[in-house]
């Protein structure tokens, strides 16, 4: 019951946040130079054809009406033009790319498996690596292991992902010839190929993030290990493994979860650089192409979708918080 009230309350505020974000994104879109109608009207572009294109795309309306039409499209779908040339964009319609002749929603859906495969695999890997390294470093503070892990994490934090990606391709792809260097194979088509294509991007992303998580976990763990309840746990005769793994870790994870939610959310919106380096057709690559082609409806749609993912991730973090930390529960 309590959880239900909490969820409904959070969902409501999520919708509010999304509305604000959509408005801002749309305003930026209106203010940006570049006219989609102009781009699609072809050559020679007579004023009459331009006007027609405008009317077709709905750009002849004042901006706020365009925005309302966009919002309406999200919930009810919308139709551009009329008669035989009409294009329908089904709900939830994130807009329509006239350059690609495809609804933005469909374009995003096509790319989701790629990006989600990259992001989720990497996230699992970096959580295990980062939290594991952080815990070991904290418990064996000052040891060679701790120093090695922290040196490594400094490198990881400061290394740009394209550099790590390219080095990885060079070493494991070309020199050792262990993994394919680019492209994506669907999981449903060829699970082994899927795995082989993803191993390298996973490792690159995981290493970079694990570095941050190792530092965060280590710092948090050192603090928690100094808490009174850790002394209590030891004083009641628990094994050190249980003291660290049960009493300390649960408290350490609370702040880690917050950061994880945001990281995973933003990565699901597209690992722009990693996708480009490994030539993976994900959301990040889609966005990058859209920017290159000044495909404004696509830019707005993908941006909004990414924002939605981040907000969703935060919402999930809040829910997990309620389970992990009883003090938050009200």
């Amino acid at each position, binding site marked *: 019951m309590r959880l239900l009230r909490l969820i409904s309350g959070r969902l409501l505020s999520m919708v509010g946040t999304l509305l604000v974000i959509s408005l801002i994104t749309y305003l930026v879109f209106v203010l940006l130079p570049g006219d989609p109608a102009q781009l699609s009207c072809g050559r020679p572009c007579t004023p009459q054809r331009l006007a027609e294109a405008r009317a077709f795309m709905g750009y002849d309306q004042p901006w706020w009406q365009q925005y309302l039409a966009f919002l309406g499209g999200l919930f009810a779908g919308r139709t551009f033009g009329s008669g035989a040339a009409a294009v329908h964009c089904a709900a939830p319609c994130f807009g329509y790319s006239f350059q690609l002749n495809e609804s933005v929603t469909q374009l995003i859906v096509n790319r989701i498996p790629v990006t989600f495969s990259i992001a989720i695999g990497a996230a699992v890997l970096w959580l295990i690596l980062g939290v594991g390294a952080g815990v070991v470093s904290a418990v064996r503070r000052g040891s060679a292991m701790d120093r090695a892990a922290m040196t490594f994490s400094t490198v990881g934090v400061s290394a740009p992902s394209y550099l790590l990606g390219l080095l990885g391709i060079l070493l494991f792809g070309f020199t050792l010839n262990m993994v394919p260097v680019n492209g994506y194979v669907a999981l449903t088509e060829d699970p082994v190929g899927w795995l082989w294509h993803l191993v390298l991007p996973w490792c690159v992303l995981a290493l970079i993030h694990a570095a941050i998580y190792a530092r965060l976990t280590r710092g948090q763990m050192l603090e928690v290990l100094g*808490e*009174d*309840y850790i*002394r*209590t*746990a*030891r*004083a*009641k*005769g*628990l*094994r050190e493994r249980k003291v660290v793994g049960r*009493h300390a870790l*649960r*408290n350490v994870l*609370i702040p880690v979860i917050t950061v994880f939610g945001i990281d995973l959310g933003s990565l699901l919106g597209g690992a722009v650089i990693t996708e480009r380096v490994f030539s993976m057709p994900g959301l990040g690559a889609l966005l990058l192409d859209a920017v290159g082609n000044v495909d404004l409806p696509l830019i707005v749609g993908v941006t909004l979708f990414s924002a939605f993912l981040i907000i969703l991730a935060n919402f999930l973090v809040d829910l997990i918080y309620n389970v*992990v*930390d*009883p*003090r938050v529960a*009200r």
Partner: protein
Amino acid sequence: MTVSSTEPHLTKATRSPLLAVAGLAVSFEVDGETHQAVHDASFELHRGQVLALVGESGSGKSVTAMATLGLLPATARVSGSITLAGTELIGAEPRLLREVRGGRIGTIFQEPMTALNPVFTIGDQIAEAIRAHRPVRRAAAAAQVLELLGTVGLDDPSRVARSYPHELSGGQLQRAMISMAISCDPVLLIADEPTTALDVTVQAGILDLLRDLRKRLDMAVLLITHDMGVVADVADTVVVLRDGQIVEQATAAQLFSAPRHEYTRTLLHAVPRLPELRLAEPGTPQPPEPQPLDPTLPPPVVQLRNVVVEYPGRRRGHPVRAVDDVCLHIDQGEMVALVGESGSGKSTIGRALAGLLPTTSGTVTVAGVEVGRATRRELRNFRSQLGIVFQDPASSLNPRRTVGASIAEPLSLHTDLSPDAQRRRVDELLEAVELPSRLHDRHPHEMSGGQRQRVAIARAIALNPALLIADEPTSALDVSVQARILDLLLALQRQIGFSCLFISHDLAVVEQLADRVAVLHRGRVVEEGPVQTVLRAPRHPYTARLLAAAPVADPTRQALRREAWRQLTLASP
């Protein structure tokens, strides 16, 4: 051990001791320097006995206890011997130490709120302690938890077991901690400042429970405390520590009646004393009447009329009334004490006086300014008439500012003294609080707790305030330091003549210091009057209970007070 043979428990001394500490030395390596925390400590503890390790902060009492559990940090060097029923604990195998911890030795700590893990239920944590030592199933452990929680006098054990630490009060938590400590029938209970973080009435209950458990379970108790009243209440023998060295050990009766060592005498002397308790006949307590003000006298510096302060509650529409219809006045040059337990609203009143908190209704007038109606500018002016000293100087002084800068801050905010004049004034103030002027450029972390509190006082009186609010100014300090800070406050008050609102939970301190006292209970003033009257012959039953619960540093008198407390608690729990 040199203990007189007239003591009854000495017959047990012929048996081998349960805990024998011999030549214990503990040192820490800090930044290449060796710091000796305990030197050559030896004492013995027998079954069924309570031995108190007494000392001020840094005396090595907690270190000794942690050495017994083998829980000192890795940087500690330990030598000597600690045996529990003949088994050597120093340098013992981790496996053996784990069996001892929680199995043969139960432990409770000072702050029950932080000593329990916030993310697990009480029941979980106690069951875990049982299952660490006994091969019992989950369900059996859960049943045992309920039984244990009942044993330590907690109502509704199943609700407590389901609760998380933040859902319970300090007293409930400490009882839960005790039930965890005794879950595996230990032969020894280590109680490290078990009641320091608790209110006196709660403390009396916990001490009563400890005494009762010791008798019922026939275990020994190693009590670590700084509070001589607590020692007088429960200890059989006392070991006094100073700077890691044992200066005296004796039976409690001997120690309090004829302390041999100079340090013990100083320590006992520094403990503020409560007057003999004279309980009035249980009659109808009279509510405090607002006295009509004499128009010929100067108006009081502080005037509270029917003040109510409410905090928004957890659920909407249920505000928490922290201060409930309080009337109070402080005359010029008068020192009025607000006494009460945690949650009684005493600090809230202090904050409302300073205009740091809006009142829900009623009026607060300080130095002619009605705080609730004052404009921003008036409030700023009014605050220059006000000095505040908080409980913990370590956190109320900015750690990155020098002492001089901290004291000078009110001067640069409210006066236009030149930097040179400011510096001279700061030196004057340092002298007034009896600190050498060379501390001017030091930072708070380079000073002791007492010195820091002196700095906080110097800052509070920098502008010659009309009113000084002192919110538990000595609660974080050792008794000997406390005595000196209280003397200083009194001297300054006489010298400068400010009015003072002294907020405290410690009745003995109040008795030493204040002219008048107001006793707060659940946001209401239940009794108010001259200190001598209220503390000697309380009329309200709550005041009587509060007084009877405060332990005094005298075993014989304490035994009488304990009996009085029991009677009062039975009469109105």
